[in-house]
């Protein structure tokens, strides 16, 4: 039998080819952009990175004096500690509450409470970071001074509380996914053995969902490290190694945001800020990579 397929109009064929080409291009766009970001940030920072920056001093010195007239020093040590301390405290607050809420939503509450809780958590996630910063300045600042009798209200604690409230939604949603991913057979088996819900959670579900919960925490960390506006407004912005929760600090992100406008394009200060950007990009890359590997690990298992 001769070819019985209807002939397609050339226009149709051509347009289809064009669209498929566009689709392919868009497909690799994400890769292009990630490389693009790294490339452009690196490009602006590289000349100084390889042309004069004392890397040891950069990473470990706590003296940050980019605009000094007498003794220019680019030490981000205190900034790294600032980012680290705020993130660590934020995680210390967010992990128990986030995982606790995830366990509650997944195992302990009724359908209607679950729906309303989920809506509230989505609301929490939608609040923009500049609004959180504003809340930090206007609400948390006096609150911390009153409740804790702290000398200053813009400090590590303030920033950490804000970051915790910002990262909790991610942790709850991914944590809940991780717990839901544990097959019901586990729960049924525990029930058959006479376990209460708490015992099921503690002895069966948590160990089983361990990697998913870890991924949730890692993603929360990634979010916290990368946060800019809220910490810019609420941590007191002091180049300082904090000796207590109530000391003001400055983070890497806030430093870039505060100083980028002034540095004239091409100057050493400008390039150092981009180098800090490279540092941030690397940190979040590693954190998100590990989180993704962990998440993929659980998905494959199911």
């Amino acid at each position, binding site marked *: 039998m001769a070819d019985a397929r209807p002939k397609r109009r050339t226009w149709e064929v051509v347009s289809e080819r064009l669209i498929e080409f566009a689709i392919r291009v868009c497909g690799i766009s994400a890769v292009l952009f990630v490389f693009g970001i790294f490339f452009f940030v690196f490009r602006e920072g590289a000349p100084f990175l390889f042309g004069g920056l004392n890397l040891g001093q950069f990473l470990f010195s706590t003296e940050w004096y980019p605009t000094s007239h007498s003794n220019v020093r680019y030490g981000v040590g205190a900034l790294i500690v600032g980012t680290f301390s705020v993130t660590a405290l934020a995680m210390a607050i967010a992990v128990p509450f986030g995982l606790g809420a995830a366990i509650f939503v997944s195992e302990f509450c009724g359908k209607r409470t679950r729906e309303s809780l989920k809506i509230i958590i989505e609301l929490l996630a939608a609040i923009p970071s500049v609004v959180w910063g504003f809340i930090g300045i206007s609400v948390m600042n006096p609150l911390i001074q009153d409740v804790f009798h702290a000398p200053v*209200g813009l400090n590590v604690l303030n920033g950490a509380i804000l970051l915790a409230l910002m990262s909790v939604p991610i942790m709850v949603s991914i944590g809940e996914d991780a717990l839901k991913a544990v097959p019901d057979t586990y729960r049924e088996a525990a029930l058959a053995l006479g376990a209460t819900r708490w015992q099921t959670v503690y002895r069966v579900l948590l160990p089983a969902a361990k990697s998913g919960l870890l991924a949730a925490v890692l993603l929360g960390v990634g979010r916290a490290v990368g946060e800019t506006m809220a910490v810019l407004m609420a941590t007191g912005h002091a180049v300082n190694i904090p000796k207590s929760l109530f000391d003001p600090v400055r983070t890497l992100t806030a430093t870039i945001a505060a100083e980028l406008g002034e540095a004239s394009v091409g100057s050493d200060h400008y390039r150092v800020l981009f180098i800090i950007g490279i540092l941030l990009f690397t940190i979040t890359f590693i954190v998100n990579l590990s989180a993704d590997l962990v998440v993929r690990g659980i998905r494959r298992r199911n």
Partner: protein
Amino acid sequence: MRTKLISTLLIGIASIGIAFVSCKKKEEAPAPGSAAPPPPPAAAKKETVQNIGSDTMVNLAQAWAEEYAKIDPNVSVEVSGGGSGVGIAALINGTADVANASRKLEPEEVEKAKAAHGGKEPQEFMVGYDGLAIYVHKANPLEEITMEDLGEIYREGGKTEKWAQVGVKSIPGAKDGNIIRVSRQNNSGTYHYFRETVVGKKSDFKSGSMDMNGSKEVVELVAKTPGAIGYAGLGYATGEVKILKVSKKKGEPAIKPANATVLDKTYPISRPMFMYTPGEPSPGVKKYLEWIMTDAGQKIVEQSGYVPLAKK
């Protein structure tokens, strides 16, 4: 069916978008002489002036821009803050027509600006003065301070860390005796000026001060923090903070910052405010700058809490 609808909608929106963008662009280009009815002379060409820079001056620049819009609606002044450093950087980059600075241009900056604009030197216009006030919490019993003490508090290596060292035994509400230093970020002209005058040009600030983004934040923070001390323009004073009198040396009389003491230089920490243009300003910008230096413009300086130029 639905995707056809959506795609036609998108194409429609896209073409409308392109249409009005190109229309906008045409509007901004000056009408060539022969085109449609010639616009009345002295006229319809709208000029936008990018005014970027000092935070100290930003509210003042804003007030000027608004007032001037009433006088010459064809000139639209767009104001941005960010700090004197930001303004100067923008001047060098070419993104600012007028840069506000609460300090003089450094020689390197002049060189960079010349290089970026084909050898033209940036023009300097002095538009007023600003007294830099030292603020403390209202409940702080301290009334005056010397320049040396200020230096020891703020300078890297300075020995003064506690209020007791400047004679303040206790501040009601302060939780410990530490002096909480409030400062500005290093893109601020105020920061640079303070470093030059109080800390010492060859030295740097002590690490650990709370470096605020704007003068307003400095005053607000000091108002809420009993153990704090901070510096910011006189124009940012509110009823919630106390201003200290400053003496040049121990034993000399301490002067309160005010218009008179700033103009006759008895108050030691005051500085002129500048506006810079890259080379000779365009006629529209020149008229604006000249207006600023007239009585009308200077009245706004005074209303905003700054010190107007001495009347000639």
